């Protein structure tokens, strides 16, 4: 039985050593290079004496960063990818939680690290790969790893203002990758076009099936997602046949009528997720790719990646939504109502996930872990942890899950999962602000901030840019004389949302 994700790489490198594993516009790494680099890094980190510790990979999006991930795993530790564009303040917050002893950087990010008050080991990727591989220590580390040991931590927005680090183990990832690959029908001929950043779990979809099957994954330059013709030309040039993108990236292409100019020539599998893919845009893609498979994916970071899928196999009208479908093999969904009984018929309930893909919880955060990773209330006989997603859903007539809404103030904005509470907390910390509230206007896909206080709107954005990643900065900032309140003394979010809609129409 496979217990370590590295087995994928070990098998594949013997089979197709000189095939390209990961590439971007200009650089590529073969499986042999990934294998050699990763074992060199693994040797260096292991010799540092670290075991089952977080090792930060703070690098630009590049095939080398992926080799660094596997390097950390060879060393018997777990990798923590960090967004290189993240503001210093947030990196420091994350480091407070992690207490990392070792950071792998590149020639650009090393400069960012120098501005932090960080005392641990900082090593350049390009130096580490010159380490002489020590097969003995790597074998020792491999043998002492269990499949319940952490593989990575990825950080996600936290409503208390502190990002939460989701810890996933080998076994969860193996379970996820085996089942996802079946659905996507990955093979050695698969050529992925990756869109997701490497610091989110969304990139597992390309990273791991690539080493399992000896496929190839291209990391598409982020800028291409601003200029859709270039994007499609890139897909054609690299003969990309499989994409798993956030729906907003697909909508960007079709919404700009890109297909009038250029059409993807090799695409066979189009998976999308993280947010609703409007039927109008789906139809546009289906029109130019009538033979491609279109698959909606749904799942939270806390269940390793994706938990449910729906292959679109019928016509939809413009007012319908594409279902999130049914769980992957070896994943179970419970739809629990407020009273912890199962939703029946078309009742709405909270999506709760059970299975091996449920992750270990939040790193150094027992309180938040205990809130979301709970005992299955339907099982009083033995311990069984389920993850409560906070997503509300119901079943359609065919037994497919349909997403309805969120229980709380978490939103999906351009594919990013954001707690509005985290933005509000940071606005409230700005000197002079007395009240702050953020709403999400779904129609215009804008984060709208209303605040009361003696601060100019431009200073709100400026202050936030030092604290939050770019995708969390409100798109619209409005100063108010006073905040509308509900009779209970809470900020009246509905009134704010209605007033924003009203003013937008004018």
């Amino acid at each position, binding site marked *: 039985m496979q217990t370590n994700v590295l087995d994928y790489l070990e098998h594949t490198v013997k089979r197709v050593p000189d095939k390209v594993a990961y590439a971007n516009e200009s650089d590529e790494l073969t499986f042999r290079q990934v294998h050699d680099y990763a074992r060199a890094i693994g040797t260096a980190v292991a010799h540092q004496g670290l075991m089952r510790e977080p090792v930060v990979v703070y690098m630009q999006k590049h095939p080398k960063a992926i080799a660094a991930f596997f390097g950390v795993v060879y060393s018997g530790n777990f990798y923590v990818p960090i967004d290189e564009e993240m503001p210093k303040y947030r990196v420091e917050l994350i480091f407070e939680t992690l207490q990392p002893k070792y950071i792998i950087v590149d020639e650009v990010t090393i400069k960012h690290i120098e501005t932090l008050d960080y005392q641990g080991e900082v090593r350049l990727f390009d130096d580490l790969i010159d380490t002489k591989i020590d097969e003995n220590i790597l074998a020792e580390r491999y043998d002492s790893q269990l499949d319940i040991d952490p593989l990575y931590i990825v950080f996600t927005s936290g409503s208390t203002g502190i990002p939460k680090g989701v810890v996933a183990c080998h076994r969860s990832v193996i379970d996820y990758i085996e089942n996802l690959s079946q659905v996507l029908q990955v093979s050695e001929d698969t050529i992925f076009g990756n869109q997701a950043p490497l610091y989110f779990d969304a990139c597992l979809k390309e990273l791991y099936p690539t080493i399992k099957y000896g496929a190839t994954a291209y990391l598409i330059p982020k800028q291409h997602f601003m200029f*859709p013709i270039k994007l499609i030309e890139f897909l054609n040039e690299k003969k990309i046949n499989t994409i798993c993108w956030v729906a907003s990236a697909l909508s960007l292409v079709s919404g*700009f009528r890109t297909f009038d100019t250029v059409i993807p020539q090799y695409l066979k599998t189009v998976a999308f997720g993280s947010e609703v893919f409007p039927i109008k845009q789906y139809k546009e893609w289906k029109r130019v790719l009538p033979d491609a498979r279109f698959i909606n994916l749904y799942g939270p970071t806390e269940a390793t990646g994706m938990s449910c899928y729906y292959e679109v196999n019928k016509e939809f009208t413009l007012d319908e939504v594409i279902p999130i479908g049914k769980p992957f093999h070896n994943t179970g969904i419970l739809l629990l109502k407020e009273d912890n009984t199962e939703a029946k018929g078309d009742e709405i309930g909270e999506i709760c996930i059970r299975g091996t893909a449920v992750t270990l919880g939040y790193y150094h955060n027992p309180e938040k872990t205990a809130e979301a990773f709970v005992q299955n209330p339907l099982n009083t006989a033995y311990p069984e942890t389920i993850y409560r997603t906070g997503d509300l859903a119901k079943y359609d007539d065919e037994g497919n899950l349909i997403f309805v809404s969120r229980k709380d103030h978490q939103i999906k904005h351009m594919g990013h999962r954001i707690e509005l509470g985290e933005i509000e907390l940071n606005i409230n910390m700005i000197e002079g602000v007395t009240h702050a509230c953020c709403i999400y206007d779904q129609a215009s896909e804008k984060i709208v901030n209303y605040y009361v206080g003696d601060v100019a709107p*431009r200073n709100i954005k400026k202050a936030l840019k030092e604290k939050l990643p770019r*995708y969390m900065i409100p*798109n619209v900032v409005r100063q108010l004389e006073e905040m509308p309140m509900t009779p209970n003394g809470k900020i009246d979010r509905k009134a704010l949302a209605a007033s924003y809609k009203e003013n937008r129409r004018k």
Partner: protein
Amino acid sequence: MMEELLDILEELHDDVDFETCTTLIDDKILDSFDIVTIVAEVNNEFDVIIPAAELTPENFNSAKALYALIERLEDE
């Protein structure tokens, strides 16, 4: 008219001097969300549809270049 365009841009990033900046794309000041918003707002304000073929780094690198594009499309 140039003022209207500057209003659209300043609504997105009020800390950027759009009258002088000529590296909006090169310096990653605009992201894909901004491009989508600009195209939609230009459509509203100027009644001009920016076709995909005109979505190029050059056309979005400065307010001036973008305004020239709008004028060109208005003439067509």
